[in-house]
């Protein structure tokens, strides 16, 4: 029989020898562990007691926010905060009292501030007071040996250089809430960190937020720092340039001073907003601190709602501005041409109901441009009776109403474009033909935001190309986001003729007229109270200023560069309040941009 197994004895011998050598090393190493763990135990035990490590975050400065001229709108300023180090404390109780005296806080208040972040890791510091005054800093610094559980740190604090200016574009910061902290799985935020809570600060939070650094230091058993072990420097967040023009923004805010309303100025080609005003405003500097319940409460309980961003969250009836939509719908569906005339006698009886024109004596016989110029209601009632509400709704949506514009500020509302479906769902009722008549002049349940009106105006100015509004600069390389409505540009020319006459030939928009600047625009007045109630008020000798006042227009006519939309709440007729205000903005724009360009051109 042949040999079944090979002779492997030499290999096995070598293997055994290797194992023996490795085992000897293993036992020698074990002896070394014995030395460390048993022999030198006392020494290392003492070292362990004396030598603790502590990691502290070093906050990173947020990126700055500039206007389009590179003026700083949101800056950082050094500010002192004091944190509570749980780790350094054996028991809370005995130190609460002296610390609360040192910081001039009630013991209960101090406890609640510590308790808020009780669930954090023991080595993460909890901010208990920030935005300290220099005297407070001096006191804490002088007595730091007595209070190892307190840690004084400088942090960059947001400072809005122009206070309430552009507050609704910039937004504000607040401390990250415990709920947000618990839900953030990737540990993006730490407890006590300030994060963007609205507008640009929120939308671009990731972009603006830097990367926090880390300081590792050794501390003694009392929690006193013995020195740095390692330091990772924080990385500042990226800077952001807004499309806002500070001069225009300030002027627009001045013009709305004391009124409630909104102004949007944008570039119809790129969608870049040059001014964005929601009035009344607020000073975000007042509550960029972690502990300011009084100021915060006073702002959120203000009946004028200064925090509300009216530009994108204010829902208003568009009033006569909506006539642009009705006119485009009628031209596109072919029920009229721009030369079709109707007769206005001051009112029109339809479906057994009287529908009045705002001009009681009546406009007489007029065509479409004249009807837009004079904002004649009867003309548009005539269009409304020839259209269905669903057709109007379809074109209103095509033109961008009824859904958010997609601007880069969060919280935008959709508005409302009514249709038969909507009414059936929302109110469980059928649509009445009479309601279509109201809708045709922008009354009834139509709701828009000022930004939607500005976007609609830009679409008209572009002869049918929609843009997405934005508050940041468009990257030079990229083309701005545009979308075609599919409507013929000729239709828009016919509307624009009427808008031009409205401002330049003594129409309702005459208040916006600026010599030498080809402004085209439309006014709107929306009845907040019923006409009967208004008439009763006049009988009683009161002034019925209970209508919202709109103006939205663009200029120049043939090469539109600017869209201005103004809404003044309870401003009265659009031609009286909103149009002159818009005219003033057109003037400022022209002086700054057009004149300069002309001078340079010459």
């Amino acid at each position, binding site marked *: 029989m042949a040999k*079944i*197994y*090979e002779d*492997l004895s*030499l*290999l*096995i011998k*070598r*293997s*055994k020898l*290797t*194992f023996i050598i*490795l*085992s000897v*090393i*293993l036992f020698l*190493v*074990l002896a*070394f*562990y*014995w030395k*460390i*763990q*048993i022999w*030198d*135990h006392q*020494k*290392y*035990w003492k*070292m*362990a007691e004396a*030598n*603790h*490590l502590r*990691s502290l975050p070093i906050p990173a400065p947020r990126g700055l926010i500039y206007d389009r001229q590179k003026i700083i709108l949101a800056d950082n300023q050094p500010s002192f905060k004091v944190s509570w180090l749980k780790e350094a404390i054996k028991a809370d109780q005995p130190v609460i009292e002296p610390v609360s005296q040192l910081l001039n806080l009630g013991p209960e208040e101090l406890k609640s501030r510590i308790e808020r972040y009780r669930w954090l*890791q*023991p*080595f993460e510091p909890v901010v208990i007071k920030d935005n300290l005054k220099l005297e407070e800093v001096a006191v804490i610094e002088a007595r730091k040996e007595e209070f190892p559980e307190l840690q004084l740190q400088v942090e960059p604090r947001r400072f809005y250089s122009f206070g309430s200016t552009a507050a609704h574009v910039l937004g504000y910061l607040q401390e990250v809430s415990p709920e947000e902290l618990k839900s953030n799985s990737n540990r993006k935020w730490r407890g006590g960190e300030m994060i963007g809570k609205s507008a640009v600060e929120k939308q671009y939070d990731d972009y603006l937020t830097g990367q926090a650094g880390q300081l*590792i230091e050794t501390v003694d058993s009392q929690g006193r720092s013995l*020195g*740095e*072990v*390692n330091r990772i420097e924080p990385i500042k967040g990226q800077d952001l340039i807004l499309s806002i023009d500070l001069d225009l923004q300030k002027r627009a805010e001045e013009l709305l001073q004391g009124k409630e309303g909104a102004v949007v100025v944008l570039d119809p080609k790129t969608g870049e907003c040059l001014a964005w005003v929601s009035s009344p405003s607020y000073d975000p500097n007042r509550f960029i601190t972690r502990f300011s319940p009084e100021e915060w409460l006073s702002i959120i309980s203000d009946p004028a709602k200064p925090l509300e961003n009216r530009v994108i969250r204010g829902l208003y009836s568009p009033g006569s501005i909506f006539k642009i939509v009705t006119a485009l719908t009628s031209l596109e569906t072919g029920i009229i041409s721009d030369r079709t005339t109707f007769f206005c006698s001051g009112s029109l009886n339809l479906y057994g109901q009287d529908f009045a024109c705002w001009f009681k004596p009546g406009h007489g016989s007029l065509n479409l441009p004249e009807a837009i110029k004079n904002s004649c209601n009867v003309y548009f009632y005539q269009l409304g009776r020839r259209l269905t509400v669903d057709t109007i709704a379809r074109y209103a949506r095509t033109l961008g109403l009824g859904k958010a514009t997609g601007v880069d500020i969060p919280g935008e509302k959709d508005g409302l474009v009514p249709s038969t479906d909507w009414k059936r769902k929302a109110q469980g009722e059928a649509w009445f033909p009479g309601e279509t008549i109201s809708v045709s002049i922008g009354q009834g349940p139509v709701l828009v935001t000022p930004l939607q009106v500005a976007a609609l105006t830009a679409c008209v100015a572009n002869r049918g190309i929609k843009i997405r509004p934005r508050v940041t600069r468009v990257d030079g390389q990229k083309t701005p986001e545009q979308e075609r409505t599919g409507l013929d540009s000729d239709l828009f020319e016919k509307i624009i003729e009427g808008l031009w006459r409205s401002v330049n030939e003594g129409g309702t928009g005459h208040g916006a007229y600026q010599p030498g600047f080809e402004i085209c625009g439309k006014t709107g007045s929306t009845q907040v109270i019923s006409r009967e109630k208004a008439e009763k008020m006049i009988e009683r000798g009161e002034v019925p200023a209970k209508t919202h006042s709109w103006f939205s227009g663009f200029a120049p006519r043939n090469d539109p560069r600017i869209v201005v939309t103004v809404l003044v709440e309870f401003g009265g007729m659009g031609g009286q309040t909103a149009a002159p205000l818009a005219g003033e903005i057109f003037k400022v724009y022209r002086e700054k941009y057009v004149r300069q360009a002309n001078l340079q051109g010459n």
Partner: protein
Amino acid sequence: MLDRRIFREIDWTTILLMVLISVIGIIFVHSAIYYQASQYVWKQVLWLAVSLAVLSVLLMIDYKVLLSFAFPFYILMNVILAGLLIFGRRIANTRSWLVFGPFQFQPSELTKLAVILLLARLFSSYKEEQMSFRAFLLSSGLVGLPFILIALQPDLGTALTFIPVLLGAYILAGLPKKYVILILIVSLLAGLVGWNYGLKDYQKKRIETLLVPGQDPRGAGYQLQQSKIALGSGGLTGKGYHKGTQSQLRFLPARQNDFILAVVGEDLGFLGILMVFGLFFIFLYRLFMATQVSPDRAGVYIAFLAAMLIGCQFLINIMMIVGLFPITGIPIPFLSYGGSSLLSNFLIVGLVINVKMRRFAYVRF
């Protein structure tokens, strides 16, 4: 065809030891990083389950079949490693990872398996008492290629684990004295050149730290100092599970990987260390002794190289964390956190079990 009798020969004790050490590892990974443990622990538990499943598949296939695929497998792994260097995404500054959804895998770990199979294949018909120069060069080159590819990732720690495997091949094949001298000269030269050009500053620091411990407790010596304090303060019985680690080792990077034994030593003291050493001693004994029951030469090589790989990784790590070896980023097999290395270690030991269970099937009358 599968002979059912071979399943009676499965070495359950070795499998049990692997699982036991892995479970101890998971328990102490939890202690090391308890506040972010859940994801780590569950991932590792999942990897353990995957490893057991793949192991049972591996045992079905005769190792001789595996050996016949050794060369294509080796080529494939090197292509993947080269591809990673060119196309790989950088994760934690190295190009070591293949990413599949939530899981990441290090091909360098599986390359160990390929290298062991290839060397076993190469020497299976090598019956000389001493190694020829040709075999010496060939084996060195075949291990050198993946070594360089992995070192370039850069992952020096994983690359270095190939050295014991090559050394194992030298030992088993019988290296003449003149080659030993040659190796010494080459490694001395490589050391000099590497010191001046190849090693990064922090790596040099680590070696300097080893030579003069405690000279720089806040810099490179800091990790070592901390792990020694953790072990030393653990004493005989330790501070208790979850009690120690957080104060001493919190800032040690990779404490769930390379410094896991320091966590065990702090929590359970010298008795805990004794337990881990004891388990590994039994485990290594069984691996080395598998060479005695191997039916053929290739089987001896598989068992011996696997034992060298596991044994030397363990020895280097236990020496590293007390300052007897430079800190090179070599984890303890099965005990340290890491899915890819767990899987590859299971497979490597699986090869040995595979050899042992087929020792009788060889004989046919």
